Each structure stands twice: as structure tokens, then as C-alpha cells.
């Protein structure tokens, strides 16, 4: 009991809970900002009303989501100091800089232009208003990059030296921190996964409406946009994941071995589909494996040697002194599989959808539909799915909304717990990072407060999202179709109500 509630354990749980929760909103924010911007661009360029209605609809969902992302992000910025003060002292010279950059460059950008976008419909000319949402999109991507560079430094510290006298790590090469391959591949992987998430969100909601034959014109457009996003982003997520895996194999062999429950080094090393093992004794009792695949994933070569958990543990004991350098193996093993499984499932569903809803060139005449009709789902050359199977595709496509969210969460759980016992790999252990002056009662209080607050807000948020999802795209007003020509709004009628107000 005492151990289970040690301040370090509590602080770790709090970090896990608040971070995974925060990251439910982050990828949706990143991708929906860009997708909404894309829809609005289509409106500005074509002046087709369906694009404006879609912009308003997805923009609303985006705003409900980003509100949560912003407020839960504040906790992230401060909990390093609150719960991890020794970490902050040790790494602040390096880790603080990307965080400050993120705030100065990205947060200001996002928050200012989102305000302009929300309230700017009747205050800004069309093109300037459109530019605002693109600015928001750029802000979200920059923000992701800086924080991932900071996280990458924890995975693979570079560009630093240790100052023994002051007992801290000091920055020697900021450029290396920003551009090391860990940061680049992690940013690539996270951003592509973010677009997979937003694409699946769009597919799911569009499918929900199309299954009910509602808002067909807008939802067909966004189904297509969503499907294309899912397929491209899904493919890139797999490629970037492979790159990141190879980087990880070189930089954190323990994490790779744990992800595979590969206890002892093998040449060639197999990829494990299922394993059940004994952590105490350090071996698997059951394992179903594909020979050689892990060697290929790690090193691009089906016959390469991959070190096992026991080997790396021994090597680290020799290097860093006695201790257990193994992370939680089952969490790493299953986290890795849930991440890939759910991510790729949504990719497959997207790919299937893109084929099933393909357009006229590839369809016989009798299966083509007009602009206001739900597309037939055509599996084979001349035949649409029947009335039994079609609803199932729409249903599965709706569920796929949740898949990348689950995959993202497990991805982070995997990469963060897989690095344990280190907080900065090979440099600082998590147990040496907590705040020595913060009491058990204090951490417990804050963990309970955040967890309950987040739970309540989750209910509020999901209900609100559901309400707006079900309502569908709004009817357009006169004001929507006649945007102002001057900055600050046209002055025809001084008492005209604002187009948007809180």
C-alpha cells in the first residue's frame, strides 16, 4: 500500500493520465485545423455553398475539441515544475528552451488567430479570414514539433554535457536537439498519425450521416476528404513508424526488445504475434512468431541480430551499475500491438471505403449516383453491396473514429513506459526526477482533482460533440454569404448583431 502510493508512483500516474487525456485532443486539433482550412479554401475558391456549410460544421467540432486541448495543455506546461522539480532542475537548461520556443512561437500564433477566426466571420474579408485558420494550422504543427523535439531529447539525449559541479545537464548544441533523427522521425510519425486520427473522425461522422441519408451533399464531400486523408496518412504513419522503429532499435534497444518480448538476443529475430511470458524468470511460455520479421523491422535485414531484454539489461548493469533496467514488459508488448493494430485497422477501413465509394470512371452506369444521393458501395465490378452488408460498412466506418485515438494513446504509453526506468535515457532515472519537497498528500490531491475534473469534462465534451454531430451542418445566413470587404466589418448597420457571439 505504502509503495503503491509513493509520491513517485502517484506523480507517474498523474503524468500518464493527464498526458494521455491531453493527447486525445491534440491530434484532432492538428488535423481538423488543416482539414477545416482545406474546406474553407474550397469555399473561397469555388463559392459552392456545400463547402461553407461543411467548414462551419467541422469548424464547430474543431472548436469544441481545441478548447479542451488548450486547457489541458496548461497543466502539461506546469506539472514538470510541480511534480518533477528535480527533473526540471536537471534538464531545464536544455528541455526548457523548446518549451519556451513553443509558447513564444506556436501558442501565441494558435491562440491569437483562433480568436480572429472564431469571431472574424463578419469582421474580416473572406481571404484574410481564411488565412487565419491556416495560421492556426501552422501554429498547431509548429507546437507539435517543438514539444516532440523536447520529448525526443528524453528518448535520446544529444547536444549536451553534464556539469558535475552544478549537478545538471547543459545544452551545447541546440540545433542537434531540434534536428536529431529521433526528433525528425518522431515528429513525422506523430503528425501523420494525427492526420490519420482527423481523417478517421471525418470518415466516421460522414458515414454516420450517410447511413441515415442526411446532409448527403456535404457528407459525401467530407467522406471522400476523410477517406483520402486516412489512406495517405495511414500509409505515411506506417512508413514513419518503421523509420522510428529503426531509430529506436539503435538508440533504445531495450524498448525494441520489450516491444517484442524478445528475452534473449536472436539472429535472425522473429516478430511476435502473441506472447505470454514470465517476467520474473525472463522468458515466454507461449509465443507465436513470424521468423526474421523483427530483424527486418529493426535493421532492414531479415537476418540481423537483435539483442534481447536479458542482454540489454546485463549491458546496462555493467554500464550504469546494479539495478533492473527493464520496463514493464507486458505493457510495452501489448501497447505496441494495440498501437499498430488499431492504427492499421482504421487504415484498412479507409482503404476499403475508398474502393467501395469509387467514382464514376470506375463504375458501370447503373451504379453511378447524382450529387444528392448516397453512393452505392460497390465491392465487385458490377455489383453493389446488398442491403445487409451496406449498413455494416457504414457502421464500421463510424466506429473507426475511435481507432486512431486508441492507437495514439497506446503509442504514447508504449514509448514512455518503454523508456523506464529512465526519464532521460541513460542519463536520469525517473525515481531521481520527482519533487523531493512535495508530499504524498499533495500529489494524491492533485491526481484526484485532475482525474475527476477531466472525467467530468470528458462527459460534457462528448455530449456536446454528439449534439453538434447529430445536428449536422447549419443553414447559411445572409451574413455568411456576404462576408465583409473591410477589416473590422462593414459599417452599413451599426446595430447589426454579431455573426458569432459567446
Amino acid at each position, binding site marked *: 500500500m505504502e509503495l503503491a502510493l509513493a509520491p513517485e508512483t502517484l506523480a507517474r500516474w498523474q503524468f500518464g493520465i493527464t498526458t494521455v487525456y491531453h493527447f486525445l485532443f491534440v491530434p484532432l486539433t492538428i488535423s481538423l485545423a488543416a482539414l477545416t482550412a482545406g474546406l474553407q479554401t474550397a469555399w473561397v475558391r469555388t463559392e459552392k455553398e456545400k463547402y461553407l456549410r461543411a467548414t462551419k460544421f467541422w469548424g464547430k467540432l474543431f472548436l469544441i475539441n481545441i478548447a479542451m486541448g488548450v486547457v489541458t495543455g496548461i497543466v502539461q506546461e506546469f506539472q514538470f515544475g510541480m511534480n518533477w522539480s528535480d527533473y526540471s*532542475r536537471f534538464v531545464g537548461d536544455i528541455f526548457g528552451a523548446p518549451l*519556451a520556443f513553443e509558447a513564444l512561437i506556436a501558442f501565441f500564433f494558435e*491562440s*491569437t488567430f483562433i480568436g480572429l477566426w472564431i*469571431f472574424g466571420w463578419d469582421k474580416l474579408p473572406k481571404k484574410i479570414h481564411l488565412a487565419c485558420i491556416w495560421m492556426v494550422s501552422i501554429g498547431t504543427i509548429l507546437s507539435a514539433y517543438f514539444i516532440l523535439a523536447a520529448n525526443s531529447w528524453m528518448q535520446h539525449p544529444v547536444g549536451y554535457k553534464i556539469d558535475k559541479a552544478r549537478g545538471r545537464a*547543459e545544452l551545447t548544441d541546440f540545433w542537434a536537439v531540434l534536428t536529431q533523427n529521433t526528433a525528425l522521425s518522431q515528429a513525422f510519425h506523430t503528425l501523420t498519425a494525427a492526420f490519420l486520427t482527423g481523417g478517421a473522425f471525418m470518415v466516421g461522422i460522414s458515414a454516420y450521416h450517410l447511413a441515415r441519408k442526411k446532409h448527403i451533399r456535404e457528407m459525401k464531400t467530407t467522406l471522400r476528404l476523410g477517406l483520402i486523408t486516412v489512406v495517405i496518412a495511414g500509409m505515411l504513419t506506417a512508413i514513419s513508424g518503421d523509420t522510428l522503429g529503426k531509430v529506436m532499435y539503435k538508440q533504445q534497444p531495450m524498448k525494441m526488445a520489450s516491444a517484442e518480448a524478445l528475452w534473449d538476443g536472436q539472429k535472425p529475430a522473429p516478430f511476435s504475434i502473441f506472447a505470454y511470458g514470465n517476467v520474473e524468470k525472463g522468458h515466454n511460455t507461449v509465443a507465436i512468431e513470424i521468423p526474421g520479421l523483427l530483424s527486418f523491422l529493426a535493421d532492414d535485414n531479415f537476418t540481423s541480430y537483435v539483442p534481447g531484454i536479458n542482454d540489454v539489461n546485463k549491458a546496462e548493469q555493467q554500464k550504469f551499475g546494479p539495478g533492473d533496467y527493464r520496463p514493464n514488459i507486458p505493457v510495452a508488448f501489448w501497447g505496441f500491438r494495440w498501437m499498430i493494430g488499431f492504427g492499421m485497422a482504421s487504415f484498412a477501413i479507409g482503404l476499403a471505403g475508398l474502393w467501395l465509394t469509387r467514382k464514376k470512371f470506375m463504375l458501370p452506369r447503373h451504379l453511378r449516383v447524382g450529387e444528392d444521393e448516397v453512393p452505392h458501395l460497390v465491392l465487385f465490378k458490377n455489383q453493389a453491396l446488398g442491403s445487409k452488408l451496406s449498413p455494416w460498412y457504414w457502421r464500421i466506418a463510424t466506429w473507426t473514429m475511435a481507432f486512431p485515438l486508441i492507437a495514439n494513446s497506446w503509442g504514447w504509453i508504449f514509448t514512455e513506459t518503454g523508456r523506464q526506468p529512465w526519464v532521460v535515457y541513460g542519463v536520469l532515472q525517473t525515481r531521481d526526477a520527482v519533487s523531493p519537497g512535495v508530499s504524498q498528500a499533495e500529489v494524491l490531491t492533485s491526481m484526484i482533482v485532475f482525474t475527476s475534473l477531466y472525467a467530468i469534462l470528458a462527459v460534457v465534451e462528448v455530449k456536446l460533440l454528439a449534439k453538434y454531430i447529430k445536428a449536422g451542418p447549419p443553414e447559411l445566413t445572409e451574413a455568411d454569404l456576404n462576408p465583409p470587404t473591410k477589416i473590422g466589418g462593414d459599417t452599413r448597420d451599426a446595430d447589426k448583431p454579431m455573426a458569432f457571439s459567446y
Partner: protein
Amino acid sequence: MHLHDVWFVLIAVLWTGYFFLEGFDFGIGILTKLLARDRPERRVLINTIGPVWDGNEVWLLTAGGATFAAFPDWYATLFSGFYLPLLVILVCLIVRGVAFEYRAKRPEENWQRNWEHAIFWTSLIPAFLWGVAFGNIVRGVKIDQHFEYVGSVWDLLNPYALLGGLVTLTLFTFHGAVFTALKTVGHIRVRARKLALRVGLVAAVVALAFLLWTQAHSGNGRSLVALIAAVAALVAALAANQAGREGWSFALSGLTIVAAVAMLFLSLFPNVMPSTLNADWSLTVTNASSTPYTLKIMTWCAAIATPLVMLYQGWTYWVFRKRIGTQHIADIAH
């Protein structure tokens, strides 16, 4: 001037920006109960800051991030030491942000009223607690030789710090009232001016007492100048408010905040968190700072980004320069 001195100034600037901007945001939140008489008036108030509150809050995140990067030990000691008050502030900021965004998203009376209560309390509590926090930073707290805060949460609630809390609370409310007078039309504008006078007088008394106490306890020549500037600006803001010069009044109430924060930081320097246990254990700009290399990179970033931020944030205020009245608020909830 060393880079760590530059960063001391820059962090003071970031906090000043935060208190100047979120100061009137907090004030607006408090006025939703103090000034607004019905829902349309509450909505007028909320909408005066609608497009800008989020950007204003980023000044806090930047102050936090910059402290982490430039003075890691200051960040570590402050945030782990002031744990529970900070937890309360964080909870308030979370609820407050959601309240602004979600309040108008459902038409139900209950829903809107609950979020309005939330906006009031989550504005009032941080407005008070930031003053308490800064009171403690300037006065000094129990810090041991390892830079760890060893006092309790009750030590933070001492009379001097609580008085500091009252200063920020009243000053921000005043700042918000003056902002309301500048940004609204109709009855609410007239009443905002009247309320500004009353709140401003209370703020003047409390602020004078707190700043004199600060001057006596940890002041110096430069802080005295800032003190005089703060008091003079507050008196002038009140006078401008009485004369109906709303723009001037707002600029001067802002100047009051600038000068008051400047005074606190001038009294603090070269410490960043003095120890009341042993002067040698105080955190200073030298023993708490990052390396010159990190500070140099950060200086470049700040030198380029800060003016840009001020430029585009300033532009936002210009875009939304029109005054708002109840007639501008559409009936239907969005």
C-alpha cells in the same frame, strides 16, 4: 549587463504582459456578477474579451516556459513549493477556458447559468491567488540549502501575501471595469464607469498599503520610483475615468499594473526567490539561471518573436475595435 539580467527583465515583461492583459479578462469575469444585471449584459461582457482571452492567457504559458528555460531552479522551486495554490489556479484556468467556449453552445437556461457561475469564480480566485503568490515571492519563503521549499501551505497565507492578493483582485476588477467602459455601449458603459470609481478607490487604498509595505520590507531607490509611478497612474486613471476619457483611463490603469509589477521585480532583484531561513540559500539570477549558451539562443528567439506577437495581438484588438452593446448579441445560442 549579463544575459541572466536580461532574462530577469524579460520574465518581468512576460508577467507584466500577462497581468495587464489577463488582468482585465479576470476583471470582466468578476464583473459578470458585480456589474451585469441580466444575461444579455453578461454576454456583452464576455464577448468584449471573446476573441482575445485565449491569446492573453498564453502570456502566462510563456512566462512559465521562459522561467523553465532561463531559470530552471526558480521554476522548480516555485512550482513545487507553491503546489496547492497553483493546483487551484490550474483548475480555475481549465474550467474558465471551457466555460467561455461552451457556455453559448447550448440554449438551456441551466447550462448557461452554471457556466456563468464558473466564469465568475474561476476569474475571481486566480485574480486573488496570483497576488498571494507574488507577495510570497517578493517577501521570501522558507527555502533550504537545496533550493527546496520547506514551508507549509499555511505559511503562504500570511498577512502580507493576502494583502497582495487583495491588490491584484481589486486592481484587476478596476482594470476590467475601465475596459468595459471602453468596449461597450449603452447602460452598462455608464454603470461601468461608476463602478470603476468605487472599485478603483478601494484598489488605491489596498495597493498603496501593500506597495508601501513592500518598499519598507525589501525596497530600494528604483522600486520607490516605480511605486510612485504606480500610485500616480492609478490616481490619474481614476481622474480620467471621472472625466469620461475612457481610452486614457484604460491606458493608465494598465500603466498602474505595469508599474506595480515593475516595483515587485525591482524589489526582488537580484534575487528571484529569497529564502527567509538563510540569505545564502536564496535563489538569485546567477545561481538559478541557465547557461549563457541557452540564454543566448532564447534571447534571439525572444527578440524576434516578442515584437511579432505584440504586432499581431495588437492587430486583433484593432479588428475587434467596435464597442459592443446588448443589441449586438443575437438571441439564438450557437
